């Protein structure tokens, strides 16, 4: 006799089977736990960051062209054994252009900026970091160390972080710590009476909570604290004196929702930042991740940013001030607002993936949500263009 069965599996209500399933489902090859990558991925990304030239009305004499930076980023992620992955990151940046040297009052009584050096600045930065992540049944932990070098700057850093899933993996709690020790040794220090060799240290901790709300939406909130101490001023400005300690706190929130009918996802992020230089800032951005078939995705993105000024910001350098008094004319410490928009195009061909991103950024004191008592000179406008390729093998 021969029997044929069409096994229609419904969940057995037998207590024995439920009991046997409970330990079977906990076996690592079966459990729906975090898993290390099973393939190696090599990535390369080329980015160009180009600041708009300043106008003659902003810069009475000398150079007008600002920073132009090319960035090459390489990354290799590979599985190692069953529970681990390793990654190696190498970055190379080349930079040319000029940056604000000092500000003064122009002929019309408005502040003007003087850019550094007749021939501008030319520098490069090389960075190498290695890290590893170890995967557990219900989470993972990771560590990395890195080294970065420019001809006037050197940084050594490390980080540790971990995450753990709860509540059937619907809730994830993550935390981490990082530390960086930096050396600053400006070029032509003797010639321009700059500091010769200074250092600074940064320590940072973060915690984050991610909650999957339902099949199509999730929410994340994160808090981070950073403490910096040492030489925090800009050694290339004619007069830039900042406190030697800085405490930063940032609170980030992100909401993601997938729309099945549209085959697209909405990402909304908001971040609040505060530091004891006196800067508060708000960043909100929204992006729409539209799938086009199985292989393509287009992501338009819009961001708004606004910050208040640091307590010691001045838009015209006061060289009569004693050196013991904090002051800086760095536009990044002024009150301003910024709007940026851009898009990414992603083509996913299985083992190949290509991403093209373009962004336009406009900073302006008129966009600020805060009162502007001292509008800064030389607020930045830039274009950023990047092309990345990932290869899995």
């Amino acid at each position, binding site marked *: 006799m021969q029997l044929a069965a069409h096994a229609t599996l419904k969940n057995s209500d037998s207590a*024995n*089977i439920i009991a046997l399933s409970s330990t079977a489902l906990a076996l690592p090859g079966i459990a729906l736990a975090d898993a290390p990558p099973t393939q190696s991925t090599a990535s390369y990304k080329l980015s160009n960051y180009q600041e708009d030239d300043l106008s003659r009305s902003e810069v009475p004499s000398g150079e007008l062209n600002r920073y132009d930076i090319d960035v090459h980023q390489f990354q290799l992620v590979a599985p190692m054994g069953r529970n681990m992955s390793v990654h190696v990151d190498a970055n190379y940046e080349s930079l040319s252009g000029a940056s604000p040297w000092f500000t003064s009052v122009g002929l019309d009584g408005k502040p003007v900026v003087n850019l550094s050096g007749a021939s501008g600045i030319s520098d490069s930065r090389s960075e190498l970091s290695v890290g590893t992540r170890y995967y557990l049944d219900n989470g993972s932990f990771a560590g990395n160390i890195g080294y970065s070098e420019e001809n006037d700057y050197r940084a050594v850093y490390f980080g540790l972080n971990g995450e753990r899933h709860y509540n059937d993996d619907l809730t994830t709690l993550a935390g981490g710590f990082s530390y960086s020790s930096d050396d600053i040794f400006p070029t032509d220090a003797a010639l321009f009476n700059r500091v010769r060799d200074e250092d600074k240290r940064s320590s940072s901790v973060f915690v984050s909570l991610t909650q999957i709300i339902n099949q199509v939406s999730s929410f994340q909130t994160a808090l981070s604290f950073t403490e910096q101490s040492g030489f925090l001023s800009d050694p290339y400005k004619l007069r830039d004196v900042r406190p030697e300690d800085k405490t930063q706190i940032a609170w980030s929130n992100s909401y993601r929702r997938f729309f099945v009918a549209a085959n697209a996802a909405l990402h909304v992020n908001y971040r609040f930042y505060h530091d004891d230089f006196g800067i508060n800032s708000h960043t909100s951005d929204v992006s729409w991740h539209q799938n086009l078939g199985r292989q393509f995705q287009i992501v338009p993105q819009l961001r708004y940013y606004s910050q208040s000024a640091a307590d010691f910001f001045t838009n015209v350098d006061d060289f009569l001030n004693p050196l013991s008094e904090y002051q800086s004319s760095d536009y990044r410490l002024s009150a301003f607002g910024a709007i940026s928009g851009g898009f990414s195009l992603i083509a996913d061909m299985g083992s190949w993936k290509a991403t093209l991103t373009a962004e336009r950024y406009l900073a302006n004191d008129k966009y600020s949500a805060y009162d502007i008592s001292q509008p800064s000179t030389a607020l930045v406008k830039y274009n950023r263009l990047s092309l990345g390729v990932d290869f899995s093998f």
Partner: protein
Amino acid sequence: MGSFCEIQIFAESRIDAKKILSRLTEEVARLEKKYSRFRNDSFLTEINRSAGRKHGIEIDSETQSLLDHAKNCYETSDGLFDVTAATLSQIWDFKNAQIPTQAQIDAAQTTLGFHKISWSDSRLRLPPNMQIDFGGIVKEYAADSVARLARNLGVNNGLVNLGGDFSVIGAQPDNRPWSTGIIAPDRERDIMAKIDLLQGGLASSGDYERFFMHKGKRYSHIMNPFTGWPCAGLRAVSVAANLCTVAGSVATIAMLKDEIVAKQWLLDSGLPHVYMDSRQTVGGTGINANS
């Protein structure tokens, strides 16, 4: 694994399929190398060598999880399914049909008993002479693990067959179920049942190759830890469940029980199953007769 293994997958290209298959066979090889009782270099052999050692042996989380499941099987079967009963198999010589002496059986029985082992987190202590055998668990677990890995690698359609233990990766590309044939014991070309699987797993246990005739009675190679004798209940059982691991545990427990009790236990499980009893009668539920 010392038995016929087959993995069928459907991928977008042959190159993808080859890469995925090599990754999947690596996973089978990894578990075989780790838990084979017949390999001198396996981790299980190392565990068994540690028997009697005061400080025991360090075990990883995967082995702990397997022991957790083995403990669950032991408790669910009231001590019948005992992974520590391996020494019993060693004294029974199936090749030459030799019955061990009662003294040998008594001696072997003193070495077994899952309740005698202890492990706290990563350290396992086995009493002297105890041997562990994950038969009925690890091959089934390997099938599930490979199927899960295949799904993680993006395979939607496929079937894993590790020596008659099946785990479905996903239905056939046209959404048809996989048809698995269950061979009747000692009649290799005879299929005693066909079970169509759309999901989950199927595991079989029986006296297929190794059995023992004594006083006209047939004994399988599966050992009853209470009697020290091979069990003499059902001849073969196949069970389908949401996981091959669960199916394998249920099938093994059914083989260990007395025939009548076993049939009821299978019925109570609510899982589709097929068995052949000592009178060569094929039965089961959740299936349609096709004779």
